[in-house]
């Protein structure tokens, strides 16, 4: 009896999830052929035939403004609200918010909805710049936990449970703990345990799931933030979930007050949200609900195969679940294809450049010692074979001694003052090469991955400077400073 009731409930969920209320309304609107005397001025594309030729008539017809039948993202009462409710159901959260300014805006909204000026927030230092940006804006003060480091690979890992416990005990008035789930390299902390520790201390748990959307749709992947009991999560559906670039979602669970979160989002989010982005979230959610498992199975199969074949080549180390150590690598995301390149005497960024310039293969990023290729169900076996073969060819033709290569991606920061204070302090410009010992007034990072090498308020140590200069010399795309050429850096006066 109970069984048939649950089967019935399951059917009802399926029937609901089959709907795409926002996309349906948008399509109805397109067919309706209203006479438009509202923005955008291209009016279904007729006002800009060149762009229509370029993007396609259908995309232009979908690019409309908020109107009654299409609801309003800042104050959703009909189709956007329904679409968000379906998203919450699909992800197992209580509430969901569509975001059109990237996961950056989702990360910032969840931080700003949780901490105010002067509040402490516990986080690993290897966060994306968007998290530290949120501290610059809000004035909250970070309590950094140095992530574990894998010495051989030189990469930062997750936070250890003991370190979280210690930070929570030492900073009992901290309001929140922020966790990467996973890191760019696919490494997860012990999220369930961290949630337990934080909740016992009355702290909110925020998850940066910019690289973890897929965790919600396949049982063999690491636990998702919502399943682990986190209070909020920024999930980048556009990165691994199939929606259009820049669309994202913020997931929350009670007791987080959704109406307050919406107000915080509205502080900075566009009042002209793109319906192309919004409808892509609606359709991606349905696709994930019904086909996610199959998509990510295929993704894992591709990635597992590529890892085995690349490790077979020798020299490269395509690392994977063998890194799991029960703590700083509590789980590994098998869909990520990360490859350590240092042993063939090439920086990850050098291999990244050879792949694109010589072999016509674009990967996600290369940094000092590693590269990362994003694998998805959109790949074809032939392309995976190409990547493996190109790596073999680069090794055959360009392998050299690893001597002299920088061996780590992560440097423990020396914090001199909170990010906001440093960002707005009186500053002066000094030559980068002569900046040792100064307090940075701005960020320096390679993008991607966008994890600051130095952030506002941190001291520029000799190690930091060496890292910056090496990354620049090897051709990393360096960002963050006012000076676009990175010859100078603003430091505190």
């Amino acid at each position, binding site marked *: 009896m109970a069984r048939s009731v649950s089967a019935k409930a399951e059917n009802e969920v399926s029937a609901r999830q089959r709907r795409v209320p926002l996309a349906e309304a948008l399509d109805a609107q397109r067919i309706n052929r209203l006479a438009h005397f509202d923005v955008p001025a291209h009016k279904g594309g007729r006002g800009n035939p060149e762009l229509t030729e370029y993007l396609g008539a259908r995309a232009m017809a979908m690019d409309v403004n908020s109107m009654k039948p299409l609801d309003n993202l800042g104050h959703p009462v009909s189709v956007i609200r329904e679409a968000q409710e379906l998203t919450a159901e699909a992800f197992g959260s209580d509430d969901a918010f569509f975001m059109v300014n990237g996961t950056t805006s989702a990360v910032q909204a969840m931080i700003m909805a949780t901490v105010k000026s002067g509040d402490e927030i516990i986080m690993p230092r290897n966060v994306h710049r968007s998290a530290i940006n949120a501290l610059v804006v809000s004035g909250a003060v970070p309590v950094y936990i140095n992530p574990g480091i894998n010495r051989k690979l030189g990469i930062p890992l997750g936070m250890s449970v003991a370190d979280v416990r210690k930070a929570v005990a030492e900073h009992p008035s901290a309001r929140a703990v922020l966790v990467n789930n996973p890191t760019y390299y696919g490494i997860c902390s012990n999220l369930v345990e961290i949630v337990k520790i934080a909740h016992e201390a009355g702290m909110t748990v925020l998850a940066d799931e910019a690289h973890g959307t897929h965790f919600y749709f396949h049982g063999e992947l690491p636990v998702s933030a919502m399943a682990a009991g986190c209070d909020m999560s920024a999930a980048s559906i556009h990165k691994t979930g199939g929606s259009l670039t820049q669309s994202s979602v913020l997931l929350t669970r009670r007791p987080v007050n959704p109406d307050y979160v919406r107000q915080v989002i509205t502080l900075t989010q566009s009042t002209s949200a793109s319906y192309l982005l919004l409808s892509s979230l609606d359709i991606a959610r349905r696709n994930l609900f019904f086909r996610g498992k199959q998509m990510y199975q295929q993704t894992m199969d591709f990635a597992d195969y590529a890892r085995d074949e690349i490790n077979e080549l020798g020299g490269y180390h395509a690392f994977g679940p063998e890194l799991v150590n029960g703590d700083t690598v509590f789980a590994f995301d098998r869909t990520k294809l990360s490859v350590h390149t240092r042993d063939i005497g090439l920086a990850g960024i050098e291999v990244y450049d050879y792949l694109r310039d*010589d072999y016509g293969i674009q990967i996600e990023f290369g940094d000092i010692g590693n590269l990362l290729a994003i694998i998805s169900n959109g790949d074809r076996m*032939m392309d995976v074979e*190409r990547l493996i073969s190109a790596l*073999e*060819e680069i090794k055959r*033709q360009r392998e050299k001694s690893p001597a002299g290569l920088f061996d780590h991606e992560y440097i423990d920061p020396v914090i001199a003052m909170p990010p906001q204070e440093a960002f707005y302090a009186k500053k002066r410009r000094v030559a980068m090469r002569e900046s040792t010992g100064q307090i940075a007034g701005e960020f320096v990072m390679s993008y991607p991955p966008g994890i600051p090498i130095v952030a506002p308020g941190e001291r520029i140590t000799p190690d930091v400077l060496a890292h910056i200069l090496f990354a620049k010399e090897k051709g990393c795309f360096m960002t963050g400073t006012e000076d676009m050429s990175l010859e100078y850096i603003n430091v505190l006066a």
Partner: protein
Amino acid sequence: MQTELWYTDEHTRDVRFSMKVSEQLVSRKSPVQQIDIFDTPAYGRVLVLDGGLMITEKDEFIYHEMITHVPMAVHPRVKNVLVIGGGDGGTVRELVKYRAIESIDLVEVDKHVVLLAKKFLPFTSSKLKDRRVKVWFEEGLRYVRGKKAEYDLIIVDSSDPYGPAEGFFTREFYGTCYKALRDDGILINQHESPFYAAHQRSVRDAHRHIAVEFPVSTVYQCHIPSYPSGHWLFGFASKKYHPIGNLDEARWNKLRITTRYYNTALHRGAFALPNYVLDILREEETK
């Protein structure tokens, strides 16, 4: 009035080549591609992959003879040969004419092409059962990756680079072929046509990539009536032998191999290229 069935091969978006069909024998969707086989009054039996014409009974001999006998008349001791693609068996049919060849590995990603060729295309597939021939159903790139100095001759008998054969027009593929060849090995590849823009793009890409990996690299031509523009190229790349300088006419002619298109005089002529083709090669070599 009688109903007529016509098959159209889209040579470019603006140019089409059609032939009347008397009967459709096969229409199968394999995991790799759509496979069709027709009987036609003008070209006999034809094989079509993903809508594109692959071979016709009437003119396949030109293609298969030119892709095989040119390197065989240059390299003095071919013992181990790798054929990538070529599931119809036509290239293998020409290779087995050489008694000195000891082994032929055929790597075809689509098993269905071979199975259907055996049943419907006996004129090309008849020698696949030769005892020296081993057929591997595998992705070509993957197969070659594991090989080091194992072959004297590699023949890339692929379809156009807009589908399963895309990977065979890449630098990494030519580089792995280089590695799989012995020190005096030769690589021959289906090199598309220089005439229409889309195909010329492939000619350029292939030549640019091959020229980086091989010390000797050029193309030779032949005339294949059913292919786009009719003017077709093959790539000749080698670690040592020059296609004309090392052509041994007497040796080849003594073998008394029967051919309908190839002869050693034509061999020399095939490397005499039109100026616009020479320009294309030069431009890519200096990039």
